[in-house]
């Protein structure tokens, strides 16, 4: 497949890690316990590590003279293609964990499949990232159980967060033009094939956590087309602040 499409395919994966990493980065120093603080920062670190691998590869593929930081910091909001789920704010710990949980289960399955890509660099990144994603998934699932089967208050809060964020789960499986092309070339993962497993895995944890799996008629989408929620602009104005204010400088 041509480099441009491949870059787009890569951004479709990498932007999720970038924006979720950024959201988690907001929380460092504010966790409910020191141990959780450390664990969440760790997930953020893992995600940014993955982002760097993806963007370095994209920079290499690009015909323009680009760096990983150009991809991270110098796109307009409309050019970021992360799903809406990952940009949702840290309303409270329940939302943070629910967001993480709903993403991790997808992320794990995606990386697992990405190991079979025809693109060797993506295979290498997938293999390295899969271990991390597996740990993230365990961490967030464990917390879903703790909160779900903890106190009455925590059950209420985590159920509310799951209910609220559920509308963003469908988009995880949507395909852009670049996705479809990458799948045809044997490079990309056909997310359709992950959906059943995703829903089963998520349902299993929710059940163990004594939580209800939401039933929804309508889902939200937009992020993959670069149409984000109003939260995104504020996230970006902080994230891009230095690069925009001091263009072209090295740090």
């Amino acid at each position: 497949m041509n480099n441009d499409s491949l870059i787009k395919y890569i951004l479709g994966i990498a932007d999720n890690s970038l924006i979720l990493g950024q959201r988690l980065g907001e929380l460092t120093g504010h966790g409910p316990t020191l141990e959780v603080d450390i664990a969440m920062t760790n997930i953020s670190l893992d995600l940014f590590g993955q982002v760097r691998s993806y963007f370095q590869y994209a920079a290499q593929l690009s015909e323009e003279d680009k760096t990983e930081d150009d991809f991270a910091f110098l796109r307009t909001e409309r050019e970021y293609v992360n799903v809406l789920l990952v940009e949702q704010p840290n309303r409270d710990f329940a939302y943070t964990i629910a967001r993480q949980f709903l993403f991790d289960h997808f992320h794990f399955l995606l990386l697992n499949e990405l190991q079979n890509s025809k693109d060797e660099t993506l295979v290498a990144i997938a293999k390295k990232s899969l271990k991390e994603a597996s740990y993230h998934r365990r961490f967030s699932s464990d917390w879903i159980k703790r909160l779900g089967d903890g106190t009455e208050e925590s059950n209420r809060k985590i159920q509310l967060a799951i209910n609220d964020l559920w509308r963003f789960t469908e988009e995880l499986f949507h395909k852009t033009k670049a996705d479809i092309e990458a799948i045809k070339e044997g490079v990309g993962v056909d997310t359709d094939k992950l959906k059943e497993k995703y829903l089963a895995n998520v349902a299993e944890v929710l059940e163990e956590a004594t939580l209800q799996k939401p039933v929804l008629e309508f889902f939200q989408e937009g992020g993959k087309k670069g149409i984000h929620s109003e939260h995104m602009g504020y996230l970006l104005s902080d994230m891009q602040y230095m690069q925009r204010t001091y263009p072209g400088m090295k740090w």
Partner: protein
Amino acid sequence: MSEQEVKNLEEMFEQKIARDEKIEPKDWMPEKYRKTHIRQISQHAHSEIVGMLPEGNWITRAPSLRRKVALLAKVQDEAGHGLYLYSACETLGISRDELYDQLHSGKAKYSSIFNYPTITWADMGAIGWLVDGAAIINQVPLCNTSFGPYARAMVRVCKEESFHQRQGYEIMLTLCRGTEEQKQMAQDSLNRWWWPSLMMFGPTDAESTHTEQSMKWKLKRKTNDELRQQFIDQTVPQAEILGLTIPDDDLKWNEETGQYDFGKINWDEFWQVVKGHGPCNKERLQTRVDAWENGEWVRDAAMAYSEKQAAKKVQKAS
């Protein structure tokens, strides 16, 4: 225990320290030793935790992915240091909740340096270079302190701090080799952090309390003024390499003493910050209290869950 017995134990205890043997949590120790150590170790732990905030302030705005990752990792290390230090402190018979209570109520102190705001990216460099630099000088001697858990925690802490310090210096170096604007940003940051960094060694020896006892227990090996001098002598040449000017008109090399002479420290500012009236004291404490209070339901849930799980296990076993 008779007075004589206590006296004997104290003597044996002092001899043990003198022989450079470690005191371990299960060992007998004088109450004052225990209390002094709780105070110092917890203060140190609190400093790590509060110290996460000024740097955490720049995580979302770090100027490159590489720097963002390094900053996240650094702040995470500080959380880790907090964890070892709280654990070391807990071996002295105080719970982490009590320690937090002391912090949140304002009873316990933490290093005043963290009550200054981080207002530019260069502050991430200056904090690594100067604040971690000063911390290392304060802390290296503690790797040989008498209380075992504290000494062992400090070995690990110092190793990481020294990495952080190099990293901070490297941020400054990059700025100083960058554009004029970046160099100015570095100079401005040095201007703001220099004097507060000197204050990190505490009041002058004349004003300092506890020093003698702390020396005996190897909680201190050099006086505040000696450590401060060491810091200055080490840092001035580093600033020269950066091409930055230390904001002290009285700073000059003294051939005779083989040290730098330096200007008067503004001790009024020092005491103002210590007493809780620095630029960010209120914000820092409020942030910690908010994190704690907002996390209460989460900790309660985790507790309830683990109790339920334990009950289930017992039920299965029976």
